[in-house]
């Protein structure tokens, strides 16, 4: 074997070591990332006495007389001593308040995703066709609005809701959500990448704007619309700021806010409720991950 070959082999071996090392590091990192999710799920299958025993020192439950051994420090377990669905049973059939809040979350999030995407698809088409100076100025204003945190936008939202008399109704959450500029911005960027020739060709053939929009533009943007819908869903499913300010009536609160108000007596239910709340986004994530990744990839570069 000549020297060159030897060197090549050696280098390849080092590369292999490196790959193994990086892979192991990545696995450890990934494990840390997944740990909280896994723990929440496995803990939801524990009996309430097991949860009190494990986490009693943290949540200090006084479970009916409480003849339960409470360890001083938490006792983390991946696998429950005995798998039980009793927590789920209680949540689903005996404690309607959680289901009502879950229903609230759906009733806020689903219409917001649908209407925001509908309005945004139209607007994005408007922005991406017949560029003009005025449109650019307006689009810039949308970007500024999109960047503003809730700490800024909630004040105007509150004033409008008050003026319209919709404070403490679902409309105060719905309406600002419908017109949020986030989806408009992302979809416009998506539509600007459609080659103009495609649309020009249709236009020359005599197709009207609505026809071009619905028959040519929409099919080309399906992926983008799906991915942005997913992002908007995650964001509103997770809402905390708006209900705290716009809804003083806690009956109207979504589960995202209510879950933290669970009292210590029901702490054993909390994991099951948390998992139930996690299910819709989890399913969307599992089915839509490729769309999501593609959609995020399109976003980079704020100038575009």
């Amino acid at each position, binding site marked *: 074997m000549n020297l060159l070959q030897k060197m090549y082999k050696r280098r390849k071996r080092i590369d292999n070591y490196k790959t193994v090392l990086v892979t192991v590091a990545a696995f450890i990192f990934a494990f840390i990332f997944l740990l909280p999710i896994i723990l929440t799920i496995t803990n939801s299958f524990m009996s309430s006495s097991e949860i009190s025993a494990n986490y009693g020192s943290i949540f200090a439950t006084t479970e009916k007389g409480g003849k339960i051994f409470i360890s001083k420090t938490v006792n983390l377990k991946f696998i429950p001593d005995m798998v039980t669905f009793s927590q789920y049973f209680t949540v689903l059939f005996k404690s309607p308040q959680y289901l009502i809040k879950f229903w609230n979350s759906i009733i806020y999030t689903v219409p917001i995703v649908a209407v925001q995407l509908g309005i945004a698809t139209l607007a994005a088409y*408007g922005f991406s066709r017949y560029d003009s100076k005025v449109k650019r100025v307006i689009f810039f204003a949308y970007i500024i609005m999109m960047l503003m945190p809730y700490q800024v936008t909630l*004040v105007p939202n509150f004033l409008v809701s008050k003026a319209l008399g919709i404070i403490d109704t679902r409309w105060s959450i719905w309406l600002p959500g419908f*017109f949020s500029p986030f989806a408009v911005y992302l979809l416009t960027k998506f539509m600007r990448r459609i080659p103009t020739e495609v649309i020009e060709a249709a236009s020359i053939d005599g197709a009207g704007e609505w026809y071009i929009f619905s028959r040519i533009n929409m099919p080309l943007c399906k992926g983008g619309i799906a991915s942005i819908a997913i992002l908007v869903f995650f964001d509103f499913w997770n809402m905390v700021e708006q209900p705290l300010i716009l809804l003083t009536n806690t009956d109207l609160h979504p589960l*995202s806010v209510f879950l933290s108000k669970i009292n210590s007596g029901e702490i054993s239910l909390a994991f099951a409720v948390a998992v139930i*709340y996690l299910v819709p986004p989890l399913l969307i994530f599992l089915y839509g991950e490729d769309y999501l*990744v593609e959609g995020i*990839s399109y976003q980079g570069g704020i100038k575009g």
Partner: protein
Amino acid sequence: MSANEKKGMISWLFLLPSIVGVLLFFVAPFMVVIYYSMINNPIQKRFVGFANYINVWGNDAFKLAGMNTLKFSFMAVPLAVLLSLFLAAVMESRIPFKSYFRSFFLSPLMVPTASIVLIWQVMFHYNGLVNNFTALFGADKIDWLKSDKAYIVIVALFLWKNLGYNMILFMSALASIPKELLEVAALENASKMQVFWLIKVRYLSSTILFVTIMSLINSFKVFREVYLMTGDYPVTSLYLLQHFMNNTFASLDYQKLSAAAIIMFIVVTALVYVMYAVENFYGKDVEG
């Protein structure tokens, strides 16, 4: 009207629903906010100039909340950018199971904060997991969420949630760097460091800007974690601007709210403008 002009008009019809909504729910009330920030109260409506601003600016709670929020953002955002860039670079190298890793790192994005705060509490409580772990090395127990170390926890939670999203942005940007350029660099015996700093980072500059801005926006949402774990009254080091706003909403002090919102509006706009200017300067000779 020419045919083209007519079509231009039609394109405005598509914009109409969005623009009407945005005017009604964001722009018009924002004008009212500006107006409210300059009057003494909504009943007397006496013009007071910048008195409300000076008032808010000198308010101790506002200063505390503002400083805490800024401190958090200045710690969390650079870390979020650097670590996710590092992750993306790792994902770009030859490792197996790439698509699994991608899913794992992205998964926290979908987890609602409310579903996960229980586990955070189990971890960071005085009797919690993290203390059990650090005790193995002889460290003293800390009540993480109630100490001045609470910051570290919140930064960690923020990174956990946002790294995956940023990583995807960087991965797609890294993939779009022209291959010829990297080949030329390899032929010219450029070191890995040179390739990284002189080619990749420059090509990434617009993505770095985007990631920084998105991380900044998301850093204001960390209130969710803080609120759901510690409620209305956290330790002073975790008293954020959203807490201040909530309390001011509760007292219905419109002038204070309005002035505070506008100060924040100006600060956020200024921050974004500065980032934009830096990127323009650094990446100006790169097509991207």
